[in-house]
């Protein structure tokens, strides 16, 4: 048992996956010699060698495209996209091939790879280093899209994604890569040799992050701890009791958790960094309104990024959902 940051927990998962299955290979820009720009892949090259831990040309479509071929030949690629905004050149390979290969081959050759994408803002980075493109992938049938928030989940979900038979888009909230430590067990979270229920439920279920009864906030990634903070603030300031649910799986959404929490609280708010229109929040809101509208005391609210390009970082605090904006969004729903 050790206290790990998310970066360390992800690194631990990669070491465990490499050790358990020699079909696992890692491809990406600067992932081998430097261990990745965030050091998530540190130590793998030394341990497993250059045939399996591969620094590639600077070429996202090439990385994902060749990974399709590697997968077709029986390897299990883990791909690192260095930053969120760099995934767009690979978008065609992901949507046209990675997502559809199982469908196109009678289920025989799904492109079972993991595409890791550090995403989101708040790190004072240049343009296209702070995007939240997850909805693009959630809207592309054939993919699973997940996002861990805690170190423990990051480790278990990455192992689940690597052993999962379908391609998984693995969104890593880079702002909280090193935000805190959590105890992560040395024991494996599930038997890596089998695709059992524990593993697949890690890729399809939401997690209760904070108890509460007056309103439920649905969030994922870096907006989960902000939402918890907003809930604490409203508890202190107004005595209200806010529940926070970490969605974890963005496709498929955990509809049972979403509707039951919304029903139980009667009021709901969705929070994400991505632009509002056609975002994950729109889908969560629709599900609630379609299914449990009569249990609601108020329409579902949203606190999100705006429908603008992610700003130059001088303005990123204006763009990003903050504790204050989340608290105000919650109050608006509470006072409806």
């Amino acid at each position, binding site marked *: 048992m050790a206290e790990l940051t998310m970066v360390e927990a992800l690194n631990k998962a990669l070491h465990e996956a490499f050790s358990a299955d020699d079909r696992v*290979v890692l491809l990406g820009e600067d992932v081998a010699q430097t261990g990745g720009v965030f050091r998530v892949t540190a130590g793998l090259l030394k341990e497993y060698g250059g*045939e*399996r831990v591969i620094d*590639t*040309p600077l*070429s996202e*479509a*090439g990385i*994902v*495209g*060749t*990974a*399709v*071929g*590697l*997968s*077709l*030949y*029986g*390897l299990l690629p883990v791909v690192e996209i260095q930053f969120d905004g760099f995934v767009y*050149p690979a978008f*065609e*390979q992901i949507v*046209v*091939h990675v997502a559809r*290969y*199982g*469908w*196109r*081959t*009678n*289920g*025989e*050759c*799904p492109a*079972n790879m993991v595409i890791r994408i550090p995403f989101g803002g708040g790190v004072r980075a240049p343009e296209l280093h702070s995007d939240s493109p997850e909805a693009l992938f959630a809207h592309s*049938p*054939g993919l*699973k899209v997940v996002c861990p928030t805690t170190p423990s989940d990051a480790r278990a979900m990455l192992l689940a994604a690597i052993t*999962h*038979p*379908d391609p998984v888009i693995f969104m890593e909230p880079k702002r909280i890569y090193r935000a805190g430590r959590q105890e992560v067990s040395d024991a494996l979270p599930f038997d890596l040799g089998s*695709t059992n229920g524990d593993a*697949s439920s890690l890729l*399809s279920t939401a997690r209760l992050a904070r108890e509460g009864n007056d309103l439920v906030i649905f969030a994922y990634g870096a907006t989960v701890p902000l939402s918890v903070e907003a809930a604490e603030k409203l508890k202190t300031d107004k005595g209200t009791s806010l529940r926070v649910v970490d969605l974890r799986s963005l*496709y*498929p959404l955990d*509809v049972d958790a979403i509707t039951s929490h919304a029903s139980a609280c009667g009021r709901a708010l969705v929070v994400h960094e991505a632009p509002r229109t056609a975002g994950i929040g729109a889908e969560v809101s629709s599900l609630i309104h379609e299914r449990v509208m009569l249990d609601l005391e108020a329409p579902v609210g949203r606190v999100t990024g705006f429908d603008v390009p992610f700003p130059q970082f001088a303005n990123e605090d204006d763009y990003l959902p903050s504790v204050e904006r989340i608290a105000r969004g919650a109050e608006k729903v509470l006072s409806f």
Partner: protein
Amino acid sequence: MSTQEPLRIIGDGGELPDHPVPDGLGEKELLELYRWLVILRTFDERAVMLQRQGRVGTYPLYWGEEGTTAGALFACEDADWIFPSYRQCSVGILRGLPVATVLGWVRGYGGPAGFYNPRDYRLGPICVPIATHLPHATGVAWAAKIRGERTASLAWFGEGATSEGDFHEGLNFASVFRTATVFFCTNNQWAISTPVTRQMATRTVAEKAAAYGIPGIRIDGFDPLACYKAAKEALDRGREGGGPTLIEAFTYRIKAHGTADDPSLYRDETETQKWAQLEPVGRMASFLRRLEILDDDKNDELKAEAKEMVAEGVRGLESVEQPGPEVMFDYVYASDNPWTFTEGLEEVNSVARKPEAAPPQPPSPPSAGDVEIQPGSGAPGVEEA
């Protein structure tokens, strides 16, 4: 290594001389390669007829490009992986893929009537988006190399594909990691209506190989033996650790891009007729006759066999039941279907389907080998060449 004058083996029986048959091709092999050409030609002509009869959808013709497909495939070992673009959609039948499956794909069926398991035939899925299968070919040969196996890969694509980023990325990775991959470009000079001069400012495709530090070979794409020889040398070199090769099979798109295309809108068809004189099936037949390997009887026998093979495929196609709505949801995920599929199935199954339109009366079929392309006779075409 790129040369302006394409490598040629088969002459014209007149001024253009024949060159020695490539090593390893005896009488038996030459006849087998010819048999493949006849199968591809027969399939292509029949598929066009089926499209005219409304029995399959828009079909990408390859009449005249059989040599690039069969010749290159003939150079592959059984374990080698091949990656077709849609213009090589029928290449799988030379590796045992049922003709009915390819026709099912053209009829708009998904799996299993129109899709197949690539691992059964070492055959990538028929690739509709341009050039995106090139990195896949690289990846397969790369995986083989990582595993210490000799498997090579070969991908076909058109000259239009060289304008796409995936062409560069596939070749660049292959050259950096020295994978045994053959990039086989069929430069038929037309991407629907766009001439090769609008695709590139280089004089040849082959010279682009210099940008990757790999061999670039230019061959006569109407010459099946040149296609074989170039591919064989490239595959052997790759297997020995020599890395990838770019081959440019210089040819001409004799027919329309697809059954919905009308080339008279954008090019001079008298020019096309000149190129058509070079077509590979007749040219190979003449060559084999000069070598006294082929006679009328054998030729008739091969054509009859191919005709029956394709006819059997058509019968297989007609025996496939119209797929129900539930097949849309099949195979999208290898793991359990997401809950949204349950709702989707419920919804689609609750709606009465339109009765199937009666198939149109077959028009009098065009004569084999001389298929007229009618404008506006089909669904919108597959994008680009």
